[in-house]
């Protein structure tokens, strides 16, 4: 997105007071920073975004076992923008290792056949090249996790996600039929086993409960290529638009709000953000979120 459109959106959703701060690209509101970085290289903007929110060292401790959870849901290529960009992952994995992590695991509970998704998306090859361990979800390794939510209680989760020190959530921003958009909060469906389809009833409520009941230590939204229509599977290149942006934050809801605005949608119209707001997980108005936009 061009800065101009971004500012226009800012004007739409924010009060007059916050306008100058947005133009200056500086944060006034409280809470963890949300960094939105635009640039040509997905690798470079990822590194910059992490640096903007204080660096990986703040999140990862020495010797940590880190789970990186991209969206590998579909048997689609990078260009079709249904799965997280492998270059973004490479940048992240490298940063995690530099911060002193012992091990990085990459996995997702895919919707299509796992081997096809991991291979076709380019994620398996790239993650292995960067030194991460790539795992497939194993139905024999489920454990019940209590999300203690309003609509979502106990649900089977793959143990691999529970047995790590840090969890990094790396969704791709894209259109989604029933929830409107799928970003970081929705990306957590990928840690679940069982009949996940059941959770598509009252989906917004479930997404909010999921994000509240399971901690993402870092959220990095890939919006380099954005699937605008016919998500979350897509497939048609004419539905994909280059936005060349990533958004980083340690606050999952704020990252999603910023990404929603980037998608030119009103966060207050998104069911899952409304549900998260009513659970007091954070602010729903972009103006109240400490956002820093950078263009490199």
């Amino acid at each position: 997105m061009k800065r101009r459109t971004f500012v226009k959106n800012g004007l739409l959703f924010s009060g007059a007071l916050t306008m100058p701060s947005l133009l200056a690209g500086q944060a006034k509101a409280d809470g963890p920073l949300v960094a939105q970085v635009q640039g040509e290289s997905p690798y470079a903007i990822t590194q910059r975004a992490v640096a903007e929110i204080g660096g990986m060292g703040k999140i990862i401790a020495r010797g940590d076992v880190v789970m990186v959870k991209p969206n590998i849901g579909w048997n689609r290529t990078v260009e079709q923008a249904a799965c997280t960009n492998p270059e973004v992952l490479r940048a992240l994995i490298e940063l995690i290792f530099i911060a002193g992590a012992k091990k990085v695991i990459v996995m997702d509970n895919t919707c299509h056949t796992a081997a096809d998704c991991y291979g076709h998306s380019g994620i398996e090859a790239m993650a292995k090249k960067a030194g991460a361990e790539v795992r497939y979800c194993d139905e024999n390794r489920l454990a019940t996790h209590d999300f203690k939510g309003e609509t979502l209680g106990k649900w089977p989760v793959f143990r691999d996600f529970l047995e790590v020190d840090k969890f990094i959530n790396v969704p791709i921003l894209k259109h989604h039929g029933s929830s409107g958009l799928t970003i970081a909060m929705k990306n957590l469906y990928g840690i679940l086993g069982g009949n996940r389809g059941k959770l598509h009833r009252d989906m917004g409520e479930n997404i909010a409960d999921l994000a509240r009941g399971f901690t993402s230590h870092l959220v990095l939204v890939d919006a380099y290529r954005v699937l605008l229509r016919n998500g979350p599977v897509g497939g048609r290149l004419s539905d994909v638009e280059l936005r060349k942006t990533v958004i980083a934050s340690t606050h999952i809801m704020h990252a999603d709000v910023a990404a929603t605005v980037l998608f030119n949608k009103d966060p207050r119209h998104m069911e899952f953000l409304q549900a998260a707001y009513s659970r007091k997980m954070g602010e729903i108005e972009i103006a109240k979120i400490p956002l820093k936009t950078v263009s490199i």
Partner: protein
Amino acid sequence: MNAQKGKQWQRLRIGSQVVFTWLFFFLLLKSGGIAVGRLPYTGFFFYIDPLLLWVNILSGPFLQAFLLALVPLLLTLVFGRFFCGWICPFGALNQFFTWLGSRRKEKKIGVSHKSLRWKYVLLIVLLVASLFATQWLGWFDPFSLLTRSSSVTLIPGLNFLTQHALEIGADNQKLAGKIVKPFYDFSRDFLLTGKQRTFMQASAIGLIFFALLLLNFYRRRFFCNVLCPLGALYGWLAKYALFHLPLNQNCTRCGLCAGHCTYYGSPFQDYLKSECVLCLNCLKDCPFAAIDVRLQLPRAGRRPALDMGRRRVLAAAGCGMAVAALPQIGVSKKSKTHAFIRPPGAVAEKDFLKKCVRCGACMQACPTNAIQPAVFQAGLDGLWTPVIIPVNGYCEYECHRCTLVCPTHAIDNLTLEQKKQFKIGTAVINRSTCYTYADGYNCAVCEEHCPVPDKAIKFREVEVNNFRGKPKKVQQIYVVPDLCIGCGICENVCPRTDAPAIVVGAEEEQRETPY
């Protein structure tokens, strides 16, 4: 030939069997499943099978790869049934089980050869039936049988057992667990990458397969001697073969050569060229080097072969005709409707049943486990033909593996782009169970998964009274039949636990209307 040399020949034969069995399973595993992409020669064992050449000749269009099947036929005229003893992987498995069961005391000489006739009867029945449009060769053809049994039972079964055994060990926090853990991690990360496969008929096909293997304890190489139609074909040709095992003057008529003969014969008493699979055990068993190996023209008037008799041949042909009519006069042959969907690229039903050899190669290749052996959905003669069962798996949009591996092109060879356009059926919504209609909930899991770029499942927002009678805005889903290709992922992912609220049927399927 002395016993020492005989032993070397025997070892060579076993080596050849091991190599070809390994090759068979290697190609089978590479044909699909976890491997993305395809080796060009996965159909090798099918293309050297003269029975499938016959199937191809009858059902056309001719596939040149089947010319390979002439090679073993011609070689049989020289060496006899070397194929059964040296190449056939199912023969090798039977030989192995025969060896396993050979340790107990058993009758070794004078076992009746009568039951060896059955395979000739079966061959004639199947060949005649195939002339009358009922093509059942695949049920008994050794490669089809072995491929089917491996895909549907053996491989999924082994996968389950390893996974389960490792899981028990890995969860055990005590010493045993610590030992197994590294193996488990290795296996999970490198071997068990696919989900556990499940099949209709897995137990039936499995029981038949294991029964056939266990029958080797009752009679040596039971399947090869008694049932195998391919063995019968080679046996019929082997009568004229040059290969011969003549006796020299060293023979003391001790009968030791019959000790491990696969058909309970012996070179000195009842040498049957049509039954000898060149296992060469007799060479090793003879203590006096009394058996020679020679290629010679068969002498006139003396062709050592099993005598079928003209009456039996005619009776078998009659049986073939009778049996061929039975499935063709079932009511399903006239019916306009049918309750199954075929894999993409499947030719028109009538041709499909003639071409398909029920080998299950497509079932092994299918990454989502969607292709299943039919029970009686497709009629009696459709038993074990491939159908897609969406509740178990869906047709993956970015995949055309089944169309590549089908050896007889019953599932026609399609490019990925062709396959994406190929309509195998149409989805229908059941409005009395779909959440968006019946309960007034938003759901749309099916819409989400629909892989067609312009989605065939869409929704419209309407205001309804939900089940509590309150007005509510709901996004109700609907299907656009023209866009739907019938892949079945909607039926597969529908979250309802009683029965899917959206199902795919054969309506508007692209292949020509059956019958």
